[in-house]
């Protein structure tokens, strides 16, 4: 299935390109993009083989020899800490007969990666260190060191994550992320540590799963607990910035946002924040700590929340965080609460030092199966020792997901089945309310070269 860059099949045309065949800013997206095996193959060649991808947390591999396996469609890459300050992304196969060297996560000991089949060994930099019975078994020409070396992918570190790219000629990660930096950098993800790390599986294309998170238009119907305090025009106030590399993020409307505007009818902006926070605490099993909810409750017990209370409340939050030694970073006006990193990562950040990071991937080679993964990360009090390496839990049944995520997941399989309806060739997207989805798909098309 996967094809090397430069393969002639790369020039295969893309009859499933997103067009402008709708009035105004509306866009129609061909439904076959979500189940066609041919389109899936174009994605393998042009997207996954060519794009920077978030592979793991740095804290997954704290010590020399630690590794995590990163898989994407049918490719496996071992992310290995090969020195105190160096990390390598090695193709997961022995140069002898292709057996994978390791799976999941773990540690290589004695600085050796050993093939379990015939005991060939590799140093952590990928060079071959041992071939069993080398002189008797092979001609010297076959054992030329460069040909035995495990090939590497590019790596770069950002926000406490290791990113990899299978294309050696790709642009730098720094340049790829430049446009979205000011929206995410202030969150301080590199200072956070994993509270939990779970995944679930859905019978839906990976883009169906991802796109369920790329707009706020669904909140009114899908998330009643989040919607109940918000007015009907809530999603009209959500604005998005788009980047030519495919990224997108939610911003505040500078002319109609902040304290002058609140989306709820009959309650203050402050009250709305309190209500949202309570729903999010349970709804995504993160967002903020219970002591902050208690603090908000104590403010509410004093008087009905008004506009002035918000400043007092956040001052109290930061003071209490200071007393607890928790270095919560203030959000800048540019910080986005909701940022999409092309092609498959979503970062949802609040003002309380807790963040959820979502990753969406195809489940192996199946265009109609996806995994959704969540890292819930949080700023630790100063002086907290590094804990054990995070453990991935799952697959978590959808019914056991935090309720907001379960609500999102509930639409995906129904959408996947509906997209296959005969005669339903295009879905309709709103340019104003769903621009991140459109920008994502157009960027994908540009990579495919329609």
């Amino acid at each position, binding site marked *: 299935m996967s094809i090397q860059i430069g393969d002639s099949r790369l020039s295969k045309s893309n009859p499933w390109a997103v067009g402008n065949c709708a009035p105004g800013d509306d866009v129609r997206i061909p439904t076959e993009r979500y189940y066609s095996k041919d389109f899936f193959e174009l994605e393998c060649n042009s997207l996954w083989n060519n794009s920077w991808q978030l592979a793991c947390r740095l804290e997954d591999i704290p010590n020399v020899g630690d590794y995590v396996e990163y898989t994407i469609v049918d490719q496996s890459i071992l992310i290995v800490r090969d020195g105190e300050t160096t990390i390598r992304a090695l193709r997961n196969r022995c140069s002898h007969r292709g057996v994978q060297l390791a799976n999941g996560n773990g540690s290589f*000991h004695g600085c*050796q990666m050993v093939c379990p089949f015939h*005991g060939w060994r590799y140093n952590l930099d990928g060079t071959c260190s041992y071939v069993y019975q080398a002189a008797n078994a092979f001609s010297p020409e076959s054992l030329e060191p460069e040909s035995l070396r495990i090939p590497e992918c590019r790596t770069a570190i950002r926000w406490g994550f290791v990113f990899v790219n299978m294309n050696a000629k790709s642009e730098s990660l720094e340049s790829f992320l430049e446009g979205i930096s000011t929206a995410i950098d202030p969150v301080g993800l590199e200072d956070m540590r994993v509270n939990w790390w779970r995944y679930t599986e859905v019978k839906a294309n990976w883009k169906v799963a991802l796109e369920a998170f790329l707009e706020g238009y669904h909140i009114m119907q899908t998330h009643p607990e989040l919607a109940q305090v918000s007015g009907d025009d809530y999603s009209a106030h959500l604005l998005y910035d788009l980047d030519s590399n495919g990224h997108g993020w939610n911003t505040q409307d500078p002319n109609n946002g902040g304290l002058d505007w609140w989306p709820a009818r009959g309650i203050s902006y402050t009250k709305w924040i309190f209500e949202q926070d309570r729903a999010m605490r349970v709804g995504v099993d993160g967002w903020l700590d219970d002591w902050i909810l208690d603090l908000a409750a104590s403010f509410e017990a004093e008087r009905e929340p008004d506009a002035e209370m918000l400043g007092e409340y956040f001052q109290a939050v930061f003071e209490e965080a200071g007393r607890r030694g928790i270095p919560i970073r203030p959000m800048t006006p540019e910080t986005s609460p909701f940022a999409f990193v092309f092609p498959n990562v979503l970062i949802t950040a609040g003002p309380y030092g807790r963040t959820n990071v979502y990753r969406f991937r195809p489940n192996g080679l199946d265009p109609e199966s996806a995994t959704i993964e969540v890292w819930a990360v949080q700023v630790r009090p100063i002086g907290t020792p590094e804990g054990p390496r995070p453990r991935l839990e799952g697959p978590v049944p959808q019914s056991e997901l935090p309720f907001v995520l379960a609500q999102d997941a509930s639409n995906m399989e129904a959408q996947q089945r509906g997209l296959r309806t005969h005669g339903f060739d295009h879905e309709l997207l709103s340019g104003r309310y769903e621009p991140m989805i459109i920008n994502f798909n157009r960027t994908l098309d540009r990579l495919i070269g329609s």
Partner: protein
Amino acid sequence: MSTVRVSPGGIEFEVHPGESVFDASYREGWMWPTTCYGQAQCTRCHMKVVSGAAELPAISALELPIVERLSRISYRSEPDVVLRLACQVRPTNDLEVELKRAPVRRFE
């Protein structure tokens, strides 16, 4: 910090907190017998624990069936011997262990 004494060979080295006997020997420059390098797979790193066995942390579900199998195959005549894998044991106390062959110096 604990000390491991190995016979034959009479070598001795420190094991840092949280470290396995195998990792400590490698750090100290010894080639402990292995072909899987710490993956609890090849069993070649196994050792007879002559003293200190009782104080060791509980054996893991990964290691237990491996040493039980080894005991049935290679140590049938010594049913009371305590076998452990050096790559899995993270001692907090001093140990005396016995190997079939002495570890040799690792090439640098």
